[in-house]
């Protein structure tokens, strides 16, 4: 691409870049809330009709209406999950494990009306006694809300073959 072509493409490019940056910022901020265990603030990111899905490791394309998945939360269950994790009776997470989420390869995959779909790669480290690494892909459907977003759909698809080193998914992926 010549310098002239680049200049002519700049407005369109900057809109796409701006959107990707906004999505990236949002995902990084979300990851920080989870790493800091600010679960109520995290829960506030979701729309009332939100869904959070984690398929089984042997069926990455799993559909919760048809297949067995590992997590299929609507907002009520997501709230229940957060309440549980804040309680001292969620034994797997009492005391809380340390986590570090690396979110990368962020791509905006589509826009329609006020919705933005995006994909990203993740590496979520959970450290408690031993370290376990969850690796996979996020798929999001975000809804524009003011100058940020709300989450309507959040799917964490694992690349692992089994949860051999993990035992469970006791944290939010």
């Amino acid at each position, binding site marked *: 691409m010549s310098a002239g072509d680049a200049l002519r493409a700049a407005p369109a490019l900057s809109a796409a870049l701006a959107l990707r940056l906004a999505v990236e910022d949002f995902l990084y901020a979300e990851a920080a809330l989870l790493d800091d265990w600010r679960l109520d603030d995290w829960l506030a990111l979701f729309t009332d009709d939100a869904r959070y899905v984690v398929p089984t490791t042997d069926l990455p394309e799993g559909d919760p209406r048809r297949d*067995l998945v590992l997590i299929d939360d609507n907002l*009520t269950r997501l709230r*229940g999950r957060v309440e549980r994790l804040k*309680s001292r009776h969620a*034994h797997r997470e009492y005391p809380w494990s340390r986590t570090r989420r690396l979110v990368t390869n962020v791509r905006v995959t589509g826009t329609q009306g006020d919705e933005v779909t995006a994909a990203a790669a993740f590496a979520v480290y959970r450290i408690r006694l031993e370290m376990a690494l969850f690796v996979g892909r996020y798929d999001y459907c975000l809804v524009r809300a003011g100058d940020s977003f709300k989450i309507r759909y959040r799917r964490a698809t694992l690349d692992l073959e089994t949860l051999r080193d993990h035992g*469970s998914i*006791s944290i939010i992926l």
Partner: protein
Amino acid sequence: MQLADLVQDRPEAGRFRVHRSALTSPEVFALEQRRIFERGWLYVGHESEIPRPGDYRRRTVAGRPLVFLRGSDSQVRVLFNTCTHRGALVCRRDEGNAEVFQCFYHAWTFNNRGELIGTPDPDGYPPGFDRAERALQPPPRVDAYRGLYFISLDRAAPPLADYLGPARELIDLTFDAAEVLGGWTILAGTAKYAIRANWKLLIENSIDGYHFASVHQTYISYMASQRASVGAGTRGAQATLSATAGLSAAARGFALPGGHAGFLSGAPGRGIASPSPLWSDTANREVERVRALLLARYGEERGRRMAEQSRHLLIFPNLLFQDSHTGFRLRQIWPVAPDQLEVLQWELVPRDEHEEVRAYRLENSLLFLGPGGFGTPDDVEALESCQLGFRATEVEWSDVSRGLHRDPLAEDELQMRAFWRQWHALMQGLPAPATHDPRGATLAESRRQ
């Protein structure tokens, strides 16, 4: 520690305890492979996983690589997944549909009935080379009950139906109950996870009613809040707790010959077929319809047991058959090391289930069970915590005596004792345990209570 001393079983003295080396020792672990897993019947898969000719699933059972498949002749077979030439795996995908399996090493080709049908350059083999002798080999014994396929590595094992014995009554209740809805089928998707604990700890945990209130408080609170939100939580805290915990006052443990054991309980919200205050009118009407069908077809007594009774059954040594308000699942537990186990968990659903009931069924299941549920992660923590505790080797014994003096409740430990007695007998090379609980319940006894 001698084998004979690993389990101290003196019911008359009110004592039952297990030496913790049974849960930590590499020698015990090695001996279990031979005396437990190379003897009994081990679950492989359900026929609904391979509905069409050519369908196959790869499985590992007692460490052996297997293919569970339906041949072009519609026959279900189980074959060792190893080329009869020099040993490579002939099937290298977890599932699929195939006419033939060609070994990638030297291209020997087998059809989906296991017969050797091709060797490159056949003239290279001496006269008398018999292809029939070199077919893929089945395990020494393969047998099925209600579509559940098992193998035994012991040629002298009794027929599967005899091995299951009276446990068949419970299996039949669950399988008969789904006949009015087209039978059970296994859902795609398997929960596969591992725990840093001895496999026997998860066997115990899976049939343990005692830990429920303490370990699963967060689940119980969530269910109570759901009931309160629909105005169903007014029956008093204890009733709510029991109902949501799935352990009604009538819950009972049972112990059957062969080490099969578990507990029976009742709870609202069984897809087949007991309504729930948390479900829509449409779903509850459908559940009532199914319940009425069961009562009409199987009579009041049997129909009610099908509809209202939750069945938690250990099929010795390592298959859990759980038909409860959280759905119907099979959980298989494999030892990997003295302090490591792996779990495979499959969910079964009635083929022709109403869409809304199916949605509630799956919600109930995921809410509690599986690595992402509100219950299972805390069981995992409990088991790993026990295994860490065992490092204090000066504390030698685990106590399993609860309920020895009374008619066993689901919260008692009769069912664990039944498992341990069978385990201990087989480990010593004995055919059956010499002791039992003085008031141990058979199925008939637990029904009368």
